[in-house]
């Protein structure tokens, strides 16, 4: 991989943000709304439950981590969609840019754009609702990495779907995190899910992360096994997503889809 083409993909996104600052608005707005909404819900639950349980770390922490994963996914797929919307595939892929350089550029772009939302979430959650986000220390970083890898995986997979099925399939992309969220066990233990849902959940790295985080919050020992399992599944799925994207790209080159990629095209 060469650095210049990767830098080109990242620079393009910076130019887009600079040229149209309104693009920053959705990066900040949705996460801010989530934190404010769930912040007040947790505050209310703390007041009325009487159980002595602090809902802030479990619910608000869960929202923050799930939003982090979702923002990473959307960062990758939105950067990809910029090329769909501007019909730029021919210009891109008739250049020496390789697929791995393109994806690396999308991932770095996603890190930059999603970090804006993460900073806003952290400021609101800690400043207004007193979430002690970093109190868990190093384990938190390890679990965040798993969510980061899974967010990238989802972004690559979603981009592959759009490349394969055409621009209209963009509408399949946006609800993807919502479709997965019941299985991710963000707000409740895995055990409350029906048996078949637990099997699906085990295929999703976030379920290991959120189970692990709940274990830590309950004051039990560091769940190293959950971290290892979650990491293993995350890495495996990242490789599968990269393989899927490469297959879709090769199909698009073989069938001519890439050359004539346009609105509503399905091959």
């Amino acid at each position, binding site marked *: 991989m060469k650095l210049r083409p990767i830098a080109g993909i990242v620079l*393009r996104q910076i130019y887009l943000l600079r040229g149209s600052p309104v693009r920053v608005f959705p990066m900040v707005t949705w996460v801010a709304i989530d934190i404010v909404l769930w912040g007040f819900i947790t505050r209310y639950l703390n007041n009325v439950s009487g159980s002595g349980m602090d809902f802030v770390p479990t619910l608000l922490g869960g929202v923050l981590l799930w939003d982090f994963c979702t923002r990473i996914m959307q960062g990758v797929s939105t950067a990809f969609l910029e090329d769909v919307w501007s019909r*730029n*595939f021919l*210009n891109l892929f*008739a*250049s*020496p840019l390789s697929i791995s350089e393109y994806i690396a550029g999308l991932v770095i772009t996603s890190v930059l754009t999603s970090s804006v939302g993460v900073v806003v979430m952290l400021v609101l959650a800690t400043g207004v609702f007193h979430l002690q986000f970093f109190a868990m220390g190093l384990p938190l970083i390890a679990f965040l990495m798993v969510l980061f890898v899974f967010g990238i995986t989802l972004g690559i997979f979603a981009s592959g779907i759009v490349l394969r099925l055409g621009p209209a399939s963009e509408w399949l992309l946006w609800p993807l995190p919502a479709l997965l969220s019941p299985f991710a066990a963000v707000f409740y233990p895995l055990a409350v899910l029906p048996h078949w849902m637990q099997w699906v959940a085990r295929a999703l790295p976030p379920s290991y992360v959120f189970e692990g985080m709940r274990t830590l919050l309950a004051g039990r020992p560091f769940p190293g096994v959950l971290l290892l399992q979650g990491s293993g599944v995350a890495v495996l799925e990242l490789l599968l997503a990269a393989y899927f994207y490469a297959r879709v790209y090769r199909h698009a080159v*073989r069938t001519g889809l890439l050359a004539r990629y346009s609105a509503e095209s399905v091959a």
Partner: protein
Amino acid sequence: MSATPQPGERPALTVTHLHKVYGAVTAVDDVSFTVNRGEIVGLLGPNGAGKTTTINMVLGVLAATTGSVQIGGIDISKRRAKALARTNFAAVYAPLPGNLTVVENLRFFGLLYGIRSLRSRVEALLVQFDLAHLRHTKCGLLSSGEQTRAALAKALLNDPQLLLLDEPTASLDPSAAQLIREKIRGLATDNHCGILWTSHNMNEVEAVCDRVLFLSRGKVLLEGNPRMLPHEHGSATLEDLFIRVAREPLSAVANGVP
């Protein structure tokens, strides 16, 4: 006007026995040709003849069913990045992203092509294509002529050995088209760049191209000097010959039946 290859110099483009089959349809059928450095070759033919399919295979965005494409002697199916670093293209159906300014587009694509000293290269191209005053204008807001100049500036970022131009003057007024033709003619001469040009404007092809290839139903039907070819095949003008190629059976035209 015709370019003579220098001794030991590889052609800018060598296409050998290229086939592209989509199911039961053969879009490109055993096409072979070369484009030498400094030469402008016109790729002509009616709609659906296989011109754009051929160009897409040369650009590596469409895989050939069989056959090979070599750019400066490098096989694109084996060393894609190295081959594509030596080529570039401009086409009306592949505009530069309209939400980036001219200078942003040139820097973006300059990085994709791995250009060193990018800043000075971009400045030189802005001057060469009279785009300096439009540097901060979004490409989507440019006129057709300005967009064509911007696309050509992008196409020259990497000083390509091979330049593919798919109807580069299609949306231009006659004056702007003439200026673009002069610039492109200059590129072949001054930059020693091989150019593969598609156009439906036969007067333009006659004025610009050193050699033409007529494609019909995926096959190369005729090849030769655009100023001599019509007479060799019993037509008054290149346009007449084009119309015959488009309407008549392949064998009749190739055999020169009037």
